[in-house]
């Protein structure tokens, strides 16, 4: 598959994720859209790794494996981030009984 197709697909997913972050007021949905963005990037990384593998496989058997290792670590980090993030959201709900992002306007001061 020409790499272009994968690029466009990933970009589309990413932008949908961005639109979601900007559009929704529920903190949890926003978080989910961030996950969506991360996944789009993951997809693109894997596609690039295969592209490089194809181009350089003659010299080096493991060419392009870096992309997939990177995706692995992204998943690791995403998992950790989700756990901490959800803990924060639960705290927020406990304090304000709402998950509205607009309630977090303490940064104004």
């Amino acid at each position: 598959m020409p790499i272009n197709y994968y690029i466009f697909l990933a970009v589309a997913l990413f932008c949908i994720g961005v639109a979601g972050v900007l559009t929704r007021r529920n903190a949890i949905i926003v978080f989910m859209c961030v996950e969506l963005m991360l996944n789009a990037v993951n997809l693109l990384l894997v596609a690039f790794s295969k592209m490089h593998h194809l181009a350089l496989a003659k010299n080096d058997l493991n060419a392009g494996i870096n992309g997939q290792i990177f995706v692995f670590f992204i998943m690791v980090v995403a998992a950790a981030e989700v756990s901490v993030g959800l803990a924060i959201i639960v705290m927020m709900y406990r304090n304000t009984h709402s998950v509205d992002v607009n309630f977090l306007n303490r940064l104004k001061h």
Partner: protein
Amino acid sequence: MGVTQILFWVLSVVAILSAIMVVVSKSPIHSVLWLIMVFFAISGHYILLNAQFLAIVNLIVYAGAIMVLFLFVIMLMNLNADTEPQKNKWLKIAGVIAGGALLLVFVGALKNADLKNQIAQVNNGDIGLIHNLGIALFTDYVIPFEISSVLFLSAMVGAVVIGKKD
């Protein structure tokens, strides 16, 4: 059009439609479910690219663990479609336009990229296999691997500390 091509297109359409439904759904639970659909589609792409390990890990970690966590939290807070706060209409439009603009910019930028006609290898390629990935992980990338365990430790401690009721 070979089977690969048809599969690619189908998976892509499913992914994009599900993503849009994530953003658009009124009920949070529906959003979670649609997101799981997206993960399935992406895992499908991984398998197409012969990145088997990542496909399985994606399903297990993302769809299995992370999304379940989300569901727990949503059900804990008893969020329904009617308690959902709505953003100002103009801001929503602004958000959509911003996202669209970003899409256009990316597309415009990458349209003339040099690697237009490079091929991503499909179906074949050994690097996605667990065996090769595992060897690379434990030889070249063993330090990040070990440090990620420390990361998990800190995440756990952080989550517990934040969630304590004092």
